[in-house]
Protein backbone atom coordinates (compact mmCIF):
# COMPACT_ATOMS: atom_id res chain seq x y z
CA UNK A 1 0.00 0.00 0.00
CA UNK A 2 1.25 3.46 -0.89
CA UNK A 3 0.03 6.47 1.09
CA UNK A 4 0.89 10.07 0.32
CA UNK A 5 0.08 12.53 3.11
CA UNK A 6 0.19 16.27 2.59
CA UNK A 7 3.01 16.27 0.04
CA UNK A 8 4.22 19.78 -0.78
CA UNK A 9 6.97 20.70 -3.20
CA UNK A 10 8.10 24.04 -4.61
CA UNK A 11 10.70 24.79 -7.23
CA UNK A 12 11.82 28.31 -6.44
CA UNK A 13 8.71 30.51 -6.35
CA UNK A 14 6.58 27.87 -8.08
CA UNK A 15 4.43 25.77 -5.73
CA UNK A 16 3.94 22.64 -7.77
CA UNK A 17 2.43 20.41 -5.09
CA UNK A 18 0.31 22.00 -2.36
CA UNK A 19 -0.64 19.06 -0.19
CA UNK A 20 -1.25 15.91 -2.19
CA UNK A 21 -3.13 13.17 -0.30
CA UNK A 22 -3.49 9.86 -2.06
CA UNK A 23 -3.86 6.21 -1.08
CA UNK A 24 -3.15 3.31 -3.42
CA UNK A 25 -4.23 -0.05 -1.94
CA UNK A 26 -2.04 -3.08 -2.57
CA UNK A 27 -2.60 -4.74 -5.93
CA UNK A 28 -4.67 -1.90 -7.36
CA UNK A 29 -4.01 0.14 -10.44
CA UNK A 30 -4.21 3.86 -9.79
CA UNK A 31 -4.11 6.27 -12.71
CA UNK A 32 -3.28 9.89 -12.07
CA UNK A 33 -4.61 12.35 -14.61
CA UNK A 34 -4.26 16.07 -14.97
CA UNK A 35 -3.10 18.71 -17.41
CA UNK A 36 0.53 19.26 -18.36
CA UNK A 37 2.55 20.91 -15.61
CA UNK A 38 0.11 20.11 -12.79
CA UNK A 39 2.65 18.07 -10.86
CA UNK A 40 1.83 14.49 -11.85
CA UNK A 41 5.45 13.60 -12.65
CA UNK A 42 6.72 15.38 -9.55
CA UNK A 43 4.33 13.31 -7.40
CA UNK A 44 5.63 10.10 -8.89
CA UNK A 45 9.27 11.17 -8.59
CA UNK A 46 8.69 12.03 -4.93
CA UNK A 47 7.58 8.47 -4.22
CA UNK A 48 10.68 7.11 -5.95
CA UNK A 49 12.91 9.52 -4.03
CA UNK A 50 14.22 11.16 -7.21
CA UNK A 51 12.79 14.40 -5.78
CA UNK A 52 12.60 15.09 -2.04
CA UNK A 53 9.30 16.71 -1.00
CA UNK A 54 9.43 19.87 1.14
CA UNK A 55 6.68 18.61 3.45
CA UNK A 56 4.54 15.57 4.05
CA UNK A 57 5.17 11.87 4.28
CA UNK A 58 5.07 8.99 1.83
CA UNK A 59 4.36 5.63 3.41
CA UNK A 60 5.03 2.42 1.51
CA UNK A 61 3.72 -0.46 3.61
CA UNK A 62 3.90 1.82 6.62
CA UNK A 63 7.52 2.90 6.12
CA UNK A 64 8.20 6.60 5.46
CA UNK A 65 10.36 6.50 2.35
CA UNK A 66 11.18 10.22 2.35
CA UNK A 67 13.43 9.51 5.35
CA UNK A 68 15.57 6.92 3.55
CA UNK A 69 19.07 8.20 2.88
CA UNK A 70 20.42 8.17 -0.69
CA UNK A 71 22.60 5.13 -1.24
CA UNK A 72 21.66 3.43 2.05
CA UNK A 73 20.92 -0.29 1.94
CA UNK A 74 17.32 0.33 3.15
CA UNK A 75 16.79 2.59 0.17
CA UNK A 76 18.30 0.04 -2.20
CA UNK A 77 16.00 -2.61 -0.73
CA UNK A 78 13.04 -0.25 -1.21
CA UNK A 79 13.96 0.48 -4.83
CA UNK A 80 14.44 -3.21 -5.53
CA UNK A 81 10.66 -3.63 -5.11
CA UNK A 82 10.00 -1.03 -7.81
CA UNK A 83 9.86 -1.11 -11.54
CA UNK A 84 9.43 2.03 -13.59
CA UNK A 85 8.58 2.66 -17.22
CA UNK A 86 9.87 6.08 -18.21
CA UNK A 87 8.12 8.38 -20.64
CA UNK A 88 10.83 8.25 -23.29
CA UNK A 89 11.85 4.71 -22.39
CA UNK A 90 15.11 5.98 -20.82
CA UNK A 91 16.93 2.94 -22.20
CA UNK A 92 20.70 3.02 -21.79
CA UNK A 93 21.90 3.56 -25.32
CA UNK A 94 25.39 2.20 -24.68
CA UNK A 95 23.95 -1.21 -23.77
CA UNK A 96 22.16 -3.77 -25.93
CA UNK A 97 18.47 -4.48 -25.51
CA UNK A 98 18.93 -7.59 -23.38
CA UNK A 99 21.53 -5.87 -21.17
CA UNK A 100 19.01 -3.07 -20.64
CA UNK A 101 16.26 -5.48 -19.66
CA UNK A 102 18.57 -7.48 -17.39
CA UNK A 103 20.32 -4.39 -15.95
CA UNK A 104 19.34 -5.12 -12.37
CA UNK A 105 20.15 -8.82 -12.77
CA UNK A 106 23.68 -8.17 -14.01
CA UNK A 107 24.89 -6.22 -10.97
CA UNK A 108 24.27 -5.51 -7.31
CA UNK A 109 22.37 -7.63 -4.83
CA UNK A 110 20.21 -9.40 -7.42
CA UNK A 111 23.18 -10.44 -9.53
CA UNK A 112 22.75 -13.61 -11.57
CA UNK A 113 25.05 -15.31 -14.04
CA UNK A 114 25.18 -13.79 -17.49
CA UNK A 115 23.45 -16.77 -19.10
CA UNK A 116 20.63 -16.74 -16.55
CA UNK A 117 20.17 -12.98 -16.84
CA UNK A 118 20.02 -13.22 -20.61
CA UNK A 119 17.48 -16.00 -20.43
CA UNK A 120 15.24 -13.96 -18.12
CA UNK A 121 15.66 -10.92 -20.37
CA UNK A 122 14.57 -12.89 -23.42
CA UNK A 123 11.59 -14.31 -21.55
CA UNK A 124 10.54 -10.78 -20.52
CA UNK A 125 11.02 -9.53 -24.06
CA UNK A 126 8.75 -12.32 -25.23
CA UNK A 127 6.21 -11.31 -22.59
CA UNK A 128 5.99 -7.81 -24.10
CA UNK A 129 5.69 -9.21 -27.62
CA UNK A 130 9.26 -8.92 -28.87
CA UNK A 131 11.18 -11.74 -30.53
CA UNK A 132 14.58 -12.89 -29.20
CA UNK A 133 16.36 -11.48 -32.26
CA UNK A 134 16.02 -7.91 -30.92
CA UNK A 135 18.00 -8.89 -27.81
CA UNK A 136 21.36 -8.01 -29.32
CA UNK A 137 20.29 -4.78 -31.01
CA UNK A 138 20.94 -1.36 -29.51
CA UNK A 139 17.99 0.81 -28.41
CA UNK A 140 18.68 3.35 -31.18
CA UNK A 141 17.97 0.62 -33.76
CA UNK A 142 14.39 0.19 -32.49
CA UNK A 143 11.19 2.08 -33.29
CA UNK A 144 9.48 4.15 -30.58
CA UNK A 145 6.90 1.46 -29.89
CA UNK A 146 9.57 -1.22 -29.58
CA UNK A 147 11.59 1.00 -27.22
CA UNK A 148 8.51 1.36 -25.01
CA UNK A 149 8.14 -2.41 -24.95
CA UNK A 150 11.78 -2.86 -24.01
CA UNK A 151 11.31 -0.25 -21.26
CA UNK A 152 8.32 -2.24 -20.05
CA UNK A 153 10.33 -5.47 -20.12
CA UNK A 154 13.06 -3.77 -18.06
CA UNK A 155 10.50 -2.49 -15.56
CA UNK A 156 9.16 -5.99 -14.91
CA UNK A 157 12.44 -7.91 -15.20
CA UNK A 158 13.06 -8.17 -11.46
CA UNK A 159 9.44 -9.09 -10.62
CA UNK A 160 8.61 -5.82 -8.83
CA UNK A 161 5.71 -5.48 -6.39
CA UNK A 162 5.09 -1.90 -7.43
CA UNK A 163 5.26 -0.58 -10.99
CA UNK A 164 5.14 3.04 -12.12
CA UNK A 165 4.24 4.08 -15.65
CA UNK A 166 5.04 7.62 -16.74
CA UNK A 167 2.89 8.52 -19.74
CA UNK A 168 3.15 5.06 -21.29
CA UNK A 169 1.42 5.95 -24.56
CA UNK A 170 2.90 9.38 -25.30
CA UNK A 171 4.34 9.53 -28.80
CA UNK A 172 2.79 6.27 -30.00
CA UNK A 173 0.19 5.78 -32.72
CA UNK A 174 -3.33 4.82 -31.55
CA UNK A 175 -2.93 1.14 -32.37
CA UNK A 176 0.42 0.85 -30.61
CA UNK A 177 -1.07 2.79 -27.68
CA UNK A 178 -3.83 0.22 -27.48
CA UNK A 179 -1.30 -2.61 -27.51
CA UNK A 180 0.79 -1.03 -24.74
CA UNK A 181 -2.32 -0.33 -22.64
CA UNK A 182 -3.40 -3.93 -22.95
CA UNK A 183 0.07 -5.18 -22.06
CA UNK A 184 0.20 -2.98 -18.97
CA UNK A 185 -3.22 -4.19 -17.84
CA UNK A 186 -2.33 -7.85 -18.38
CA UNK A 187 1.04 -7.58 -16.68
CA UNK A 188 -0.30 -5.72 -13.66
CA UNK A 189 -3.09 -8.27 -13.23
CA UNK A 190 -0.92 -11.36 -13.69
CA UNK A 191 1.86 -10.08 -11.42
CA UNK A 192 -0.60 -8.81 -8.82
CA UNK A 193 1.45 -5.63 -8.66
CA UNK A 194 0.44 -2.25 -7.29
CA UNK A 195 0.53 0.16 -10.22
CA UNK A 196 0.65 3.92 -10.48
CA UNK A 197 0.28 5.44 -13.93
CA UNK A 198 0.51 9.03 -15.03
CA UNK A 199 -1.24 9.93 -18.24
CA UNK A 200 -3.47 12.39 -19.99
CA UNK A 201 -4.58 9.84 -22.55
CA UNK A 202 -8.18 8.99 -21.64
CA UNK A 203 -8.09 5.71 -23.60
CA UNK A 204 -5.20 4.66 -21.37
CA UNK A 205 -7.14 5.60 -18.27
CA UNK A 206 -10.12 3.44 -19.24
CA UNK A 207 -7.87 0.53 -20.19
CA UNK A 208 -5.56 0.52 -17.19
CA UNK A 209 -7.29 2.04 -14.17
CA UNK A 210 -9.02 0.50 -11.18
CA UNK A 211 -9.02 3.91 -9.57
CA UNK A 212 -8.50 7.41 -10.90
CA UNK A 213 -7.12 10.50 -9.23
CA UNK A 214 -7.14 13.90 -10.84
CA UNK A 215 -4.47 16.39 -9.81
CA UNK A 216 -5.24 20.04 -10.33
CA UNK A 217 -3.59 23.07 -8.77
CA UNK A 218 -1.13 20.94 -6.82
CA UNK A 219 -3.82 18.94 -5.02
CA UNK A 220 -5.87 15.84 -5.65
CA UNK A 221 -9.09 17.31 -7.04
CA UNK A 222 -11.05 14.08 -7.31
CA UNK A 223 -10.38 10.44 -6.65
CA UNK A 224 -12.56 7.36 -7.00
CA UNK A 225 -13.13 4.14 -8.87
CA UNK A 226 -13.07 4.27 -12.66
CA UNK A 227 -16.79 3.36 -12.78
CA UNK A 228 -17.70 6.64 -11.08
CA UNK A 229 -15.46 8.82 -13.20
CA UNK A 230 -18.04 9.68 -15.83
CA UNK A 231 -20.72 10.65 -13.31
CA UNK A 232 -18.52 12.39 -10.80
CA UNK A 233 -20.36 15.68 -10.98
CA UNK A 234 -17.00 17.44 -10.61
CA UNK A 235 -16.82 20.18 -13.23
CA UNK A 236 -13.00 20.03 -13.41
CA UNK A 237 -12.93 16.27 -13.96
CA UNK A 238 -15.81 16.40 -16.44
CA UNK A 239 -14.06 19.10 -18.45
CA UNK A 240 -10.84 17.10 -18.47
CA UNK A 241 -12.31 13.79 -19.58
CA UNK A 242 -14.49 15.35 -22.24
CA UNK A 243 -11.59 17.49 -23.44
CA UNK A 244 -13.80 20.57 -23.54
CA UNK A 245 -12.28 24.02 -23.92
CA UNK A 246 -15.09 25.50 -21.80
CA UNK A 247 -15.07 24.94 -18.09
CA UNK A 248 -13.37 25.89 -14.86
CA UNK A 249 -9.86 24.81 -16.03
CA UNK A 250 -8.21 27.77 -17.69
CA UNK A 251 -6.67 26.98 -21.02
CA UNK A 252 -3.97 29.22 -22.37
CA UNK A 253 -4.27 29.96 -26.05
Amino acid at each position, binding site marked *: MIELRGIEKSFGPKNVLRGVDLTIPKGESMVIIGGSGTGKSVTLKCVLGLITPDKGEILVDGQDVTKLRQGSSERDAF*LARFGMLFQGG*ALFDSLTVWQNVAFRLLRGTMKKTKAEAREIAIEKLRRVGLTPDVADLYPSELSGGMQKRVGLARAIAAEPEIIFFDEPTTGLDPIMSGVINELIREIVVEMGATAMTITHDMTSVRAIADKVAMIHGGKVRWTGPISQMDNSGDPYLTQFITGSADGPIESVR
Partner: protein
Amino acid sequence: MKFLATIGRSVLGLLAAIGRVALFAVETISHLFRPPWYPREFGAALMQIGYFSLPVVGLTTIFTGGALALQIYAGGARFSAEAVVPQIVAIGMVRELGPVLVGLMIAARVTSSIAAEIATMKVTEQIDALVTLSTNPMKYLTLPRVLAATLVMPILVAVGDTIGIMGGYLVGTGRLGFNPGTYLTNTIDFLEWLDIVSSLSKGAVFGFLAALMGCYFGMGSARGAAGVGAATKGAVVAASVLILAANFILTELFFAA
Protein backbone atom coordinates in the same frame (compact mmCIF):
# COMPACT_ATOMS: atom_id res chain seq x y z
CA MET B 1 26.15 50.92 -4.56
CA LYS B 2 24.52 48.87 -7.27
CA PHE B 3 27.97 48.34 -8.72
CA LEU B 4 29.23 46.88 -5.43
CA ALA B 5 26.21 44.61 -5.16
CA THR B 6 26.96 43.23 -8.61
CA ILE B 7 30.56 42.46 -7.63
CA GLY B 8 29.38 40.88 -4.38
CA ARG B 9 26.85 38.72 -6.18
CA SER B 10 29.37 37.39 -8.69
CA VAL B 11 31.93 36.68 -5.95
CA LEU B 12 29.30 34.81 -3.94
CA GLY B 13 28.23 32.94 -7.07
CA LEU B 14 31.82 31.95 -7.77
CA LEU B 15 32.38 30.78 -4.20
CA ALA B 16 29.17 28.75 -4.30
CA ALA B 17 30.26 27.13 -7.56
CA ILE B 18 33.68 26.28 -6.10
CA GLY B 19 31.93 24.77 -3.08
CA ARG B 20 29.63 22.67 -5.27
CA VAL B 21 32.52 21.39 -7.39
CA ALA B 22 34.53 20.58 -4.25
CA LEU B 23 31.61 18.62 -2.75
CA PHE B 24 31.16 16.80 -6.06
CA ALA B 25 34.86 15.91 -6.09
CA VAL B 26 34.79 14.71 -2.48
CA GLU B 27 31.69 12.59 -3.14
CA THR B 28 33.33 11.08 -6.23
CA ILE B 29 36.47 10.16 -4.31
CA SER B 30 34.48 8.75 -1.39
CA HIS B 31 32.88 6.18 -3.70
CA LEU B 32 36.36 4.83 -4.37
CA PHE B 33 36.27 3.31 -0.87
CA ARG B 34 32.65 2.12 -0.83
CA PRO B 35 31.36 -0.86 -2.83
CA PRO B 36 29.81 -1.75 -5.18
CA TRP B 37 32.34 -0.94 -7.89
CA TYR B 38 31.85 -1.27 -11.61
CA PRO B 39 35.08 -2.67 -13.13
CA ARG B 40 33.51 -3.04 -16.57
CA GLU B 41 32.66 0.68 -16.71
CA PHE B 42 36.19 1.47 -15.51
CA GLY B 43 37.70 -0.68 -18.25
CA ALA B 44 35.55 0.97 -20.91
CA ALA B 45 36.58 4.40 -19.62
CA LEU B 46 40.27 3.43 -19.73
CA MET B 47 39.90 2.46 -23.39
CA GLN B 48 37.88 5.55 -24.29
CA ILE B 49 40.04 8.07 -22.45
CA GLY B 50 43.42 6.39 -22.81
CA TYR B 51 43.80 4.20 -25.83
CA PHE B 52 41.58 6.12 -28.24
CA SER B 53 43.25 9.43 -27.33
CA LEU B 54 46.67 8.22 -28.50
CA PRO B 55 46.35 9.44 -32.13
CA VAL B 56 45.37 12.96 -31.18
CA VAL B 57 48.09 13.12 -28.50
CA GLY B 58 50.71 11.91 -30.97
CA LEU B 59 49.68 14.30 -33.73
CA THR B 60 49.49 17.34 -31.45
CA THR B 61 52.85 16.79 -29.80
CA ILE B 62 54.86 15.76 -32.86
CA PHE B 63 54.00 18.98 -34.71
CA THR B 64 54.58 21.09 -31.61
CA GLY B 65 57.97 19.47 -30.97
CA GLY B 66 58.97 20.15 -34.57
CA ALA B 67 57.80 23.77 -34.47
CA LEU B 68 59.54 24.27 -31.14
CA ALA B 69 62.86 23.10 -32.60
CA LEU B 70 62.49 25.53 -35.53
CA GLN B 71 61.64 28.45 -33.24
CA ILE B 72 64.46 27.82 -30.80
CA TYR B 73 66.91 27.47 -33.64
CA ALA B 74 65.79 30.72 -35.26
CA GLY B 75 65.61 32.57 -31.94
CA GLY B 76 68.87 31.10 -30.66
CA ALA B 77 70.68 32.07 -33.87
CA ARG B 78 70.35 35.75 -32.90
CA PHE B 79 72.89 35.24 -30.12
CA SER B 80 74.63 32.20 -31.59
CA ALA B 81 72.94 29.74 -29.25
CA GLU B 82 71.59 27.40 -31.93
CA ALA B 83 73.21 24.44 -30.22
CA VAL B 84 70.74 24.42 -27.29
CA VAL B 85 67.84 23.17 -29.43
CA PRO B 86 67.81 19.58 -28.01
CA GLN B 87 67.96 20.76 -24.39
CA ILE B 88 65.28 23.41 -24.73
CA VAL B 89 62.98 21.16 -26.73
CA ALA B 90 63.34 18.48 -24.07
CA ILE B 91 62.73 20.77 -21.15
CA GLY B 92 59.96 22.68 -22.90
CA MET B 93 58.10 19.54 -23.91
CA VAL B 94 58.49 17.65 -20.66
CA ARG B 95 57.95 20.44 -18.18
CA GLU B 96 55.27 22.48 -19.94
CA LEU B 97 54.04 21.72 -23.43
CA GLY B 98 53.62 17.97 -23.07
CA PRO B 99 51.29 18.02 -20.07
CA VAL B 100 49.47 21.20 -21.05
CA LEU B 101 48.86 20.23 -24.68
CA VAL B 102 47.79 16.72 -23.78
CA GLY B 103 45.62 18.18 -21.01
CA LEU B 104 43.91 20.60 -23.38
CA MET B 105 43.43 17.93 -26.04
CA ILE B 106 41.86 15.67 -23.40
CA ALA B 107 39.63 18.57 -22.34
CA ALA B 108 38.56 18.91 -25.97
CA ARG B 109 38.14 15.23 -26.70
CA VAL B 110 37.23 13.57 -23.41
CA THR B 111 35.61 16.29 -21.29
CA SER B 112 33.28 17.22 -24.12
CA SER B 113 32.23 13.66 -24.80
CA ILE B 114 31.73 12.84 -21.11
CA ALA B 115 29.68 16.00 -20.58
CA ALA B 116 27.54 15.48 -23.67
CA GLU B 117 26.95 11.81 -22.88
CA ILE B 118 26.01 12.32 -19.23
CA ALA B 119 23.94 15.42 -20.03
CA THR B 120 22.01 13.48 -22.67
CA MET B 121 21.48 10.67 -20.16
CA LYS B 122 20.18 13.22 -17.68
CA VAL B 123 17.86 14.87 -20.21
CA THR B 124 16.43 11.53 -21.40
CA GLU B 125 15.87 10.39 -17.77
CA GLN B 126 18.54 7.67 -18.04
CA ILE B 127 20.12 8.97 -14.83
CA ASP B 128 16.74 8.66 -13.06
CA ALA B 129 16.40 5.20 -14.57
CA LEU B 130 19.77 4.22 -13.07
CA VAL B 131 18.56 5.31 -9.63
CA THR B 132 15.33 3.34 -9.93
CA LEU B 133 17.43 0.31 -10.89
CA SER B 134 19.29 0.66 -7.55
CA THR B 135 22.45 1.97 -9.22
CA ASN B 136 24.15 5.10 -7.92
CA PRO B 137 25.02 7.29 -10.94
CA MET B 138 28.06 8.71 -9.12
CA LYS B 139 29.43 5.19 -8.73
CA TYR B 140 28.38 3.94 -12.14
CA LEU B 141 29.19 6.98 -14.31
CA THR B 142 31.39 9.47 -12.47
CA LEU B 143 33.91 7.43 -10.50
CA PRO B 144 35.00 5.10 -13.36
CA ARG B 145 35.59 8.06 -15.69
CA VAL B 146 37.42 10.25 -13.17
CA LEU B 147 39.56 7.38 -11.92
CA ALA B 148 40.41 6.20 -15.44
CA ALA B 149 41.38 9.71 -16.56
CA THR B 150 43.54 10.29 -13.47
CA LEU B 151 45.41 7.01 -13.95
CA VAL B 152 45.76 7.04 -17.70
CA MET B 153 46.76 10.68 -18.22
CA PRO B 154 50.33 10.28 -16.90
CA ILE B 155 50.82 7.57 -19.54
CA LEU B 156 49.39 9.80 -22.26
CA VAL B 157 51.65 12.64 -21.11
CA ALA B 158 54.68 10.33 -21.17
CA VAL B 159 53.77 9.32 -24.72
CA GLY B 160 53.21 12.98 -25.65
CA ASP B 161 56.53 14.08 -24.14
CA THR B 162 58.38 11.35 -26.03
CA ILE B 163 56.70 12.02 -29.36
CA GLY B 164 57.22 15.79 -28.92
CA ILE B 165 60.94 15.25 -28.37
CA MET B 166 60.87 12.96 -31.40
CA GLY B 167 59.30 15.78 -33.43
CA GLY B 168 62.12 18.08 -32.36
CA TYR B 169 64.64 15.36 -33.16
CA LEU B 170 63.24 14.82 -36.66
CA VAL B 171 63.34 18.54 -37.48
CA GLY B 172 66.68 19.01 -35.71
CA THR B 173 68.44 16.20 -37.56
CA GLY B 174 66.54 16.47 -40.85
CA ARG B 175 66.28 20.22 -41.33
CA LEU B 176 68.74 21.90 -39.00
CA GLY B 177 71.75 19.65 -39.46
CA PHE B 178 72.15 18.27 -35.92
CA ASN B 179 74.07 15.06 -35.45
CA PRO B 180 71.48 12.37 -34.44
CA GLY B 181 73.69 10.86 -31.74
CA THR B 182 74.60 14.19 -30.16
CA TYR B 183 70.98 15.34 -30.27
CA LEU B 184 69.79 12.34 -28.26
CA THR B 185 72.70 12.45 -25.78
CA ASN B 186 72.10 16.15 -25.16
CA THR B 187 68.40 15.50 -24.59
CA ILE B 188 68.90 12.64 -22.18
CA ASP B 189 71.75 14.27 -20.26
CA PHE B 190 69.87 17.47 -19.75
CA LEU B 191 66.58 16.04 -18.45
CA GLU B 192 66.32 15.49 -14.71
CA TRP B 193 64.07 13.16 -12.74
CA LEU B 194 62.19 16.14 -11.35
CA ASP B 195 61.25 17.17 -14.88
CA ILE B 196 59.70 13.80 -15.55
CA VAL B 197 58.02 13.50 -12.14
CA SER B 198 56.49 16.97 -12.53
CA SER B 199 55.30 16.14 -16.04
CA LEU B 200 53.52 12.96 -15.01
CA SER B 201 52.06 14.52 -11.84
CA LYS B 202 50.64 17.34 -13.90
CA GLY B 203 49.13 14.71 -16.17
CA ALA B 204 47.34 13.01 -13.27
CA VAL B 205 45.94 16.30 -11.95
CA PHE B 206 44.83 17.45 -15.42
CA GLY B 207 43.16 14.09 -16.09
CA PHE B 208 41.27 14.31 -12.80
CA LEU B 209 40.10 17.85 -13.57
CA ALA B 210 39.12 17.07 -17.17
CA ALA B 211 36.94 14.08 -16.29
CA LEU B 212 35.53 15.70 -13.15
CA MET B 213 34.35 18.75 -15.09
CA GLY B 214 32.76 16.56 -17.76
CA CYS B 215 30.80 14.63 -15.13
CA TYR B 216 29.94 17.68 -13.02
CA PHE B 217 28.51 19.70 -15.89
CA GLY B 218 26.83 16.65 -17.41
CA MET B 219 25.05 15.76 -14.17
CA GLY B 220 23.94 19.38 -13.74
CA SER B 221 22.61 19.75 -17.28
CA ALA B 222 19.39 21.65 -17.86
CA ARG B 223 16.63 20.19 -20.01
CA GLY B 224 16.64 19.90 -23.77
CA ALA B 225 19.19 20.16 -26.56
CA ALA B 226 20.19 23.64 -25.42
CA GLY B 227 20.88 22.24 -21.94
CA VAL B 228 23.20 19.57 -23.33
CA GLY B 229 25.00 22.17 -25.45
CA ALA B 230 25.46 24.53 -22.52
CA ALA B 231 26.68 21.70 -20.27
CA THR B 232 29.25 20.60 -22.86
CA LYS B 233 30.49 24.12 -23.46
CA GLY B 234 30.70 24.84 -19.74
CA ALA B 235 32.58 21.62 -19.09
CA VAL B 236 35.21 22.22 -21.78
CA VAL B 237 35.75 25.86 -20.78
CA ALA B 238 35.98 25.02 -17.06
CA ALA B 239 38.31 22.07 -17.69
CA SER B 240 40.62 24.13 -19.92
CA VAL B 241 40.81 27.06 -17.50
CA LEU B 242 41.31 24.80 -14.49
CA ILE B 243 44.05 22.86 -16.30
CA LEU B 244 45.95 26.05 -17.11
CA ALA B 245 45.48 27.41 -13.59
CA ALA B 246 46.57 24.09 -12.05
CA ASN B 247 49.55 24.08 -14.40
CA PHE B 248 50.70 27.39 -12.99
CA ILE B 249 50.25 26.25 -9.40
CA LEU B 250 52.04 22.94 -9.99
CA THR B 251 54.91 24.65 -11.81
CA GLU B 252 55.24 27.01 -8.86
CA LEU B 253 55.28 24.02 -6.48
CA PHE B 254 57.83 22.00 -8.43
CA PHE B 255 60.18 24.62 -9.78
CA ALA B 256 59.91 27.77 -7.63
CA ALA B 257 63.39 28.79 -6.80
